[in-house]
């Protein structure tokens, strides 16, 4: 009996391949899921370039850049966790997982600060204090909130999954060896990072 082997698979490598294939298909669906929002952004940017430039200049580039760096770093630690797991280094894996979760939490904290500042500045569509009058500026912030909001939800799920995984690993309740579980978790985490890699220039760097 091999630990972590599930019905209906006969061998672990086969199961690992299936899990990897499955999560990649899921990530493909996520691309289209985010794709709809990116399309909305692109269409309106095409229609209102000036409004989008003016609105893009109002986002917080310091927090945005810092957050991008946090996520890139967390991707590196996540990769380290997956590789450590594959090498059978339990302590290393645990350390890397916790680091990743902390970096993700850091992102969320900074994002919360940024959101609060945005609300204070009235950078919310429909807000009476909305500071910009260019056509399309409100649409930019509509998409800013929708895209970063959806990304944040994904990140919260990711941090939760990381925490749970670290806890189960620590308690010895996780069949982590050879099952590819860490790899699957890692793929999700990296994907959320890749989405941000494209959100960052579109939302923070336009109109600088």
């Amino acid at each position, binding site marked *: 009996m091999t630990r972590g082997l599930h019905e209906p698979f006969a061998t672990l490598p086969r199961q690992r391949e299936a899990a*990897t294939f499955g999560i990649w298909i899921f990530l493909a669906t996520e691309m289209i899921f985010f794709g709809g929002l*990116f399309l909305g952004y692109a269409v309106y940017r095409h229609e209102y370039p000036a409004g989008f430039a003016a609105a893009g200049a109002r986002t917080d580039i310091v927090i945005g850049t810092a957050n991008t760096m946090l996520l*890139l770093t967390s991707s590196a630690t996540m990769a380290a966790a997956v590789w450590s797991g594959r090498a*059978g280094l339990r302590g290393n894996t645990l350390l890397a997982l916790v680091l990743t979760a902390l970096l993700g939490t850091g992102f969320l904290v900074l994002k919360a600060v940024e959101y609060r500042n945005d609300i204070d500045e009235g950078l919310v569509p429909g807000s009476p204090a909305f500071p910009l009058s260019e056509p399309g500026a409100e649409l930019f912030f509509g998409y800013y909130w929708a895209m970063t909001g959806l990304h944040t939800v994904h990140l919260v799920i990711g941090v939760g999954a990381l925490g749970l995984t670290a806890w189960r690993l620590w308690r010895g309740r996780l069949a982590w060896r050879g099952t590819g579980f860490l790899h699957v978790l890692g793929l999700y985490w990296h994907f959320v990072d890749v989405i941000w890699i494209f959100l960052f220039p579109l939302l923070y760097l336009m109109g600088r």
Partner: protein
Amino acid sequence: MQRDQDDGRGLWLKAGAVWIALGVVLAATVAGAYLAPGPLRLPLALGLGAVKAALVVVVFMELFDSRASTRIAPLVGALFVALLFALSFADEATRQEMPRSFAAPPERAVQDR
């Protein structure tokens, strides 16, 4: 399941190297947003974004170490996002140019709920 004898320094080094590369590209992206000539900024930003994404996808996500069927999945996803964009823009970019309204600007209706 053979156990690696080293303490995992190699893998941390590898992750660190990629991390430094990502940081450099990020710095270039931010700098480009201020320094590059206007029309080039968007393609530059997206191009550098693609470089970062490629680093993550290839090294961290190990896309090319997977089976062929797995490798196709994200490719198909990307192709269909491109399709969504292409055919939507076939409409959005070729609409008849016409004033938005021939009457008074539409007022917001009072909403019940």
